[in-house]
């Protein structure tokens, strides 16, 4: 493409969109380091005066359930990522590389079911998991999230496998390798960028998922972070300094992962959905 000189208006637009994007997050962080008097001050404090870490200390000492919820999100998110990568990797490989007659219809089915509104799943999943004893268990929510996010993972991974040269597999077939061995020893080592991108996106989706996490974890000790923080406010009080602080703690892992792996995530999203 012909190079054009970057124009000042470009930088103005970029700065403006960055400001609009970052402002709510910055404001949240600023709220979390204000004293209670600072949070409810008039005229408002745009800049915390004084800065305080008291809200963070208070979360650690007075609201163990909020910390526990962040741990729960980690456990569920990690479990979901592992399950989805293993199962989705195998399915994506078979559907994209084994020239299966049922590959086309299966991919369409997987795409179609991923469009179901989550709330339409709630009554039956709740009843089902209640009978199976899966309510308030990590296994239960991991199963639910895995089913929910497998479709996107299969689509992303199979589109990644599609970019690998087929000759490698043909050579391995000539050597008499079985498909499972080819998948494990030939395909996997070549596809780790695809797995990283898919894994990151699935982890973020699981961390952020709300309706199923809300309904399947009814005990406060088992709730995930978004649900625990949403349900934290009491009926009459809305302790914004605590809510802001807990929210900061719950989004920092996600924003850090996003910042570190921004290229992989953009690549994964554009490859999986753009097609």
């Amino acid at each position, binding site marked *: 493409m012909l190079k054009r000189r970057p124009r000042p208006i470009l930088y103005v637009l970029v700065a403006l969109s960055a400001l609009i994007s*970052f402002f709510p997050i910055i*404001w949240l962080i600023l709220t979390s380091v204000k004293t209670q008097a600072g949070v409810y001050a008039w005229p*408002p404090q745009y800049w915390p005066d004084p800065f305080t870490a008291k809200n963070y200390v208070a979360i650690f000492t007075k609201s163990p359930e909020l910390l526990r919820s962040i741990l729960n999100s980690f456990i569920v998110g990690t479990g979901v990522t592992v399950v989805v990568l293993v199962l989705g990797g195998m399915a994506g490989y078979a559907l994209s590389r084994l020239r*299966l007659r049922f590959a086309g219809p299966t991919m369409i089915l997987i795409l179609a*079911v991923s469009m179901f509104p989550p709330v339409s799943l709630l009554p039956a999943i709740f009843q089902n998991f209640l009978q199976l004893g899966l309510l308030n268990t990590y296994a239960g929510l991991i199963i639910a999230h895995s089913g929910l996010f497998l479709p996107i993972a299969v689509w992303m991974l199979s589109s990644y496998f599609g970019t690998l040269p087929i000759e490698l597999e043909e050579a391995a077939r000539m050597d008499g390798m079985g498909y499972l061995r080819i998948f494990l020893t030939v395909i996997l080592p070549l596809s780790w960028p695809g797995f990283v991108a898919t894994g990151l996106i699935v982890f973020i989706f699981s961390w952020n998922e709300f309706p199923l996490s809300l309904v399947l974890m009814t005990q406060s000790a088992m709730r995930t972070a978004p649900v625990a*923080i949403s349900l934290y406010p009491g009926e009459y009080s809305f302790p914004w300094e605590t809510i802001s602080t807990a929210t900061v703690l719950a989004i920092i892992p996600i924003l850090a992962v996003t910042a570190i792996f921004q290229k992989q*995530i953009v690549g994964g999203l554009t490859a999986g959905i753009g097609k």
Partner: protein
Amino acid sequence: MPAMTVLDRRRHWTGGGFVLPTILLIALVLIYPVLVSVVQSFGQSDLGGTAPYRFVGLQHYIEIAGSAHFWNALGVTLIFAAGSVPFELVIGIGLALLMNESFRGKSIARLAVLFPWALPTALNALMWRWMFNSDYGVFNAVVLQTHLASRPIDWLGEPTLAMTSMIVVAVWKTSSFMALIILAGLQAIPGELYEAGRMDGMTRWTEFREITLPLLRAPILVALILRSMDALRTFELPFNLTGGGPIDTTESLSLYAYKEIFAYLKFNSGSALVVVQFLVVFAMSVIYIIALRRRD
């Protein structure tokens, strides 16, 4: 179709084995629950599953059709989708065009697009609820101190304003998703097309209208489908931003169905509601797909 050889057959058995666990999980979590909802919507039982199922035909659907509450929720959902998706599209195209330029500080721009996408919708709603707070929120602080308003504005407490505020939050969060899909489309456009355009002395605007936009038709439609589907099933945004209020003016279909099922324990009529919602989302996808086919 040619007959399968022994090798073909073996490949299909192995492939089937690879796909089966995924299909089973999807069946358990996605397909079976929807089928159960359909069955329950035609019957009477209870959420604990202890009462025996009794078939009642279309009774729940007839109740829904006569319920003002349902029509309100459907209207809220459609207004929310129609009010948010077009803005997301325009801003998304703008962001994608920005991201497609080369400039210094690209990584900051990429994060500006990714952060809103990566935030949990539920916590994002809480974050904005605090900024919209009528007594202590930053928006009222600014409009009062700059004398744009003389009294505090109740951003989430007045019907029309609450819906507008909710749309603003959705547009802020999801324009970036539109941008990412459209960016993928932009990057697939061969640079030579633009070079040819430059030779013909095209301005940037004609270049965008004559080359870029027509080639972006497919990604734009995909983005529209995905975002409209999401908007039609919005749940945690009103759940955490407004709770559905004031006087149900932001109560989406998903939120209404959730309350019916889990707050009022109306398992069967709630199931009928989710089936109706399912059909609304399905109908919209079909309309878009027909539109996509037509244009091709």
